[in-house]
């Protein structure tokens, strides 16, 4: 009874509960938006710009991502928070560079996956969502993809937690699976908000499927299922190369790496 006043548990519990509610609301907003868009595939996509669907995709995914960021960010240790800007710069620089080439990949999640491997799924999700938000200061077309970016970070963290980075050949497998799910989530945004894709190379793939008679959403989903899994497999492999090239004293500074034996040779503390 008397010990409760020494550790101030009530305020801490209330804050934790509030954050948990925000997390649940964020995840529900993202899942609900996706389910709504897929179940109510609007017929207006080809007969007009699909205004209601675009608004729902834009607001639902973005609100969900922002709720997740607000819930997760205050729980992260300062050592992780100060690393997030570095990861965001890495994402933006690589994304801008690859986006300007004629390669149907993105490579804009290296920083996100790096943080997820070092600090866990929550940090990865927050980094992914923040990456889209901060990048939108220079390129607003990435803003609606914040939920997809958060999902990539979350899944990368889960993969790291379950040992997919302990064996080098498992990293691209985890990346491939993450890419499939990320592509499925991002496709409705690309379809309803942008009417396709903003890249020339990815646009060429969409137009090839359209020429075969696919509907717009089907063509974009197929394009995403080609580009995203390969892209994430490459990204996960690059991140595995990077984290194993870093000195052990640096990677073992992260409690997540030690606790879940994320990397080969890392032990429980």
């Amino acid at each position, binding site marked *: 009874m008397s010990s409760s006043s020494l550790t101030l548990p009530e305020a801490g519990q209330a804050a934790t509960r509030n954050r948990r509610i925000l997390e649940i609301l964020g995840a529900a907003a993202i899942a609900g938006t996706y389910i709504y868009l897929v179940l109510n595939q609007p017929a207006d996509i080809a007969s007009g710009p699909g205004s209601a669907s675009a608004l729902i995709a834009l607001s639902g995914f973005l609100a969900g991502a922002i709720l997740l960021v*607000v819930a997760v960010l205050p729980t992260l240790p300062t050592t992780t928070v100060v690393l997030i800007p570095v990861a965001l710069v890495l994402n933006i620089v690589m994304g801008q560079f690859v986006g300007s080439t004629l390669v149907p990949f993105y490579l804009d999640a290296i920083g996100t996956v790096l943080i997820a491997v070092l600090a866990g799924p929550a940090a990865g999700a927050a980094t992914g969502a923040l990456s889209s938000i901060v990048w939108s200061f220079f390129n607003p077309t990435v803003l609606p993809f914040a939920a997809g970016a958060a999902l990539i970070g979350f899944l990368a963290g889960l993969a790291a937690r379950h040992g997919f980075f302990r064996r080098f050949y498992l990293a691209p497998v985890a990346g491939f699976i993450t890419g499939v799910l990320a592509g499925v989530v991002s496709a409705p945004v690309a379809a309803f908000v942008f009417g396709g894709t903003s890249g020339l190379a990815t646009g060429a793939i969409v137009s090839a499927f359209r020429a075969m008679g696919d509907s717009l959403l089907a063509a974009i989903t197929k394009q995403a299922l080609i580009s995203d899994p390969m892209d994430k497999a490459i990204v996960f492999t690059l991140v595995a190369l*990077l984290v194993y090239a870093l000195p052990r004293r640096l990677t073992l500074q992260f409690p997540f790496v030690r606790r879940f034996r994320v990397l080969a040779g890392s032990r429980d503390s």
Partner: protein
Amino acid sequence: MCGASGSWPEAGIPRPGRISPLTGLTAVVAAIVVTTAVGHWSLSLAVLLAAAVATAAARTARRVWSAAALILLPFAASLLLTHGLFFPEGHTVLWAWGPARLTVEGLGFAGAMLLRGAVLVVLLLALSFSIRPADVMALSAKYEVPAQLAFVLCSTLTIAPDISRRAQRIREAQQLRGLHTGTSLPARAASFRALAVPLLLSVMNDAGQRAAALEVRGFGGPAARTSLREVPDSRLQAVFRWTVAAGLPVFLVLWFGPGWGGSAP
């Protein structure tokens, strides 16, 4: 001093630069939502025209429109490729070559999407070119936004040039040491690793020092933060924000509700 009772006139329309970032954000969100909901090319064009006037008044027109062009030109090319040439739902064929068919309906769809995308891009760029990072920090302290969020937003915008300079120095140092910079895939992978690992090491070391410095200053603690900086604002702007925040949901309900002309899903 830029206090609330500073040298600027208290009444009248706020001049560019004296508008709160929150007011700008509210106006931009409202314009994007209304333009997207209505989904008509004439409204999109009108909003873009208004943005041209606003950016000219704020003297950011050249930066905003050149940045927007860099984003919108590939977007336009992608839309033309996807819908201008391959639009199975199109019937009025203007030109055909093999499987490619240029249709009126496809061009119309691509044009509408481009205009709507242009509104999103131009308005958000105009907003980001008018915001000062210091104002974002001050606003986050005022409204008790998590310190971590404000730190990440502002830190990313300020460390990007530093990381770029650092990468350049490492690249030059590696080239002096004889780094192979061929065009083959293995050579590119080797040069990527030779650049990325030292860069990552150096920024991670810096991040560790920054974390220690922030922690001893109580970063992210429960105490309320204060800011010496006064972000420009006025009662008129507050009224505008609340009016828009209340009016936007009403507009959406009326527009998409039964009996109105909006296009429900």
